């Protein structure tokens, strides 16, 4: 049976872990725990620092939800993560010093994957910092010639994360049937 992934990325604190927890049907696996079972050596050397959850579909199929680790510092793991991915969810923190810089960085870093699939952007902490609006993000995206979904998101709200992923699905194929 094929296994598919949705990748959650974004800077530290943007809500990736919370968003995956909102959607996952199983308790989210912090790979710290999983890895510690694999070896009795020093824990710090064996843990895989990423978030992982599963959405169970009818018929037993699984959608794997992965959160990218280590924010912007490494890219070797991103390639491994995105293999078999069906789309990217980019979460941005509106209260960070320069959210546009974050956005451009992640869009560029995942540009190949985005071209093959699609991206939906969720902006968190909109109620903490109102300096930038969703329209501002769209204006910035226009400079990159991108028209992608950008929504205000509270990662703790399942509904918000769900709508974001739904928009990702529709942007991949507007012809999907709604039931």
């Amino acid at each position, binding site marked *: 049976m094929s296994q598919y992934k949705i990748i959650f990325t974004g800077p*530290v604190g943007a809500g990736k872990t919370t968003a995956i927890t909102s959607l996952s049907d199983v308790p989210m696996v912090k790979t710290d725990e999983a890895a510690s079972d694999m070896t009795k050596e020093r824990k710090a050397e064996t843990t895989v620092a990423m978030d992982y959850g599963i959405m169970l*579909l009818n018929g037993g199929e699984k959608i794997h939800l992965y959160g990218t680790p280590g924010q912007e510092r490494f890219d070797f793991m991103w390639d491994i993560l995105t293999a078999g991915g069906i789309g990217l969810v980019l979460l941005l923190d509106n209260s960070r010093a320069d959210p546009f810089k974050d956005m451009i960085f992640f869009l560029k*870093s995942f540009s190949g994957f985005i071209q093959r699939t699609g991206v939906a952007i969720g902006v968190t902490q909109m109620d903490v910092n109102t300096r930038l609006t969703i329209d501002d993000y*769209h204006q910035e995206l226009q400079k990159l010639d991108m028209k992608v979904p950008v929504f*205000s998101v*509270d990662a703790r709200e399942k*509904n918000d994360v769900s709508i974001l992923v739904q928009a990702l*699905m529709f942007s991949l194929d*507007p012809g999907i049937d709604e039931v």
Partner: protein
Amino acid sequence: MKSKPTDLLTVSIYGMDGRTHKTMILFLKGPCKGVAQIVEEHEADVDIVDADAMDARVILDHCLARQPLRPIIILSLEKLNIEHTIYVAKPVKTEAMLAAFKEAHDWLKKKKEKKKENKITTILKKPESNIQLTAKVEQAKVDRIKPSTEKQASFELSTEKKFYSQSLEQKKTEKHKAAMMINEQNFSSFIGIVMGIDFNDPMQWRNARYSPKQHYQGYVQSSIKVAYEKRQVIKLNSSWKPLIILPHSRELWLDSDDKQLRAFSGVELSSSPVHDVKEMILSKVNPKEEGFATKLDKFQDMNVFVWKLACWTSKGRYPDTLDISTSVYLNQWPNFTRLVVTPHAMRIAALLIVGPRSMLDIIRTLKVKPQYVFVFISAAYAIGILGQSKRQVDEIIETEAPKIKSVPKKNLFSRILNKLRGSDKA
């Protein structure tokens, strides 16, 4: 204690949270094939600093002040050219990191050789007692620069730590309220019904129009325009409740609930004997005197308010200023997590983002009821993200309106949607 291999670099890392620290360990062990190992600060040959960390400046100053100076590798999003440092661009690639380690290694090697030469010279010059004294002084220097583990921990925490206080903004509960999903079953009860139009008859679709100007919606939209032009907080007084428009924060303030608003939005004001349009008056507002700021839960986001107002005024019709058979374009995705999401709204948005299409074409392509298309068009048009194509280029695009490609994973996407919408109880 095992001795380290000659070529193994020992590194100390700064400005990284716990998770990144672990990833770095894996990165060094895996892709970097173990050429470097993370150790405590006092044992390290090389420092690695995340220049985008909150305390980066302080950390870097600390590393640069160290005597004797050791190689400092800086990881940064922006190109940095700092003396005595080796720059590695983010996202960090294995090759770039290995090159930086090589540079650091060469740097250390040269320094060692130089030290050796100096030592030989000194031995030739100094008596034995002085050599011991020099060694002691060197050791004292190392002890002085050895930082406490607590200090390093504070660097790590600074990137993760956040303080949240419930600001005034967070108390504006209505403004940040989550989206309301309307499905086909509750569309009529939520949006309303228009009498006299049979939507099952395509011949009648052209008559399914309404005039926003003759409704409260039109007055609200004009008032918002005035507020933006004058850059002034203004109040729209009507026979109903006063609406305060705050253009700077893109907010509205209305002391009413959605039920009342829905009822009032459906009234055609020009023909209403109860609501006199002459009573629609704009006035300037002094926010300090009005006292509305105390009722924070009555603030609403401007677009969210206008969107739902248009939905309730439209009741499944389209604005009379648009033509049903001419293409419309969508500038951007609506902020669906905060709006009333009418049936098939996301599909319609996704389709229009690809290129302009007429309302008739959308109905045919997506095979959805016209009311769902019209209500979406009305709402998106009201908040200014949708317009009718006038340019020749749009007409060209219209004739070439892309057919929806059959995506191989269509079935999978549908099942994911079902799951997200709660109809799949897997």
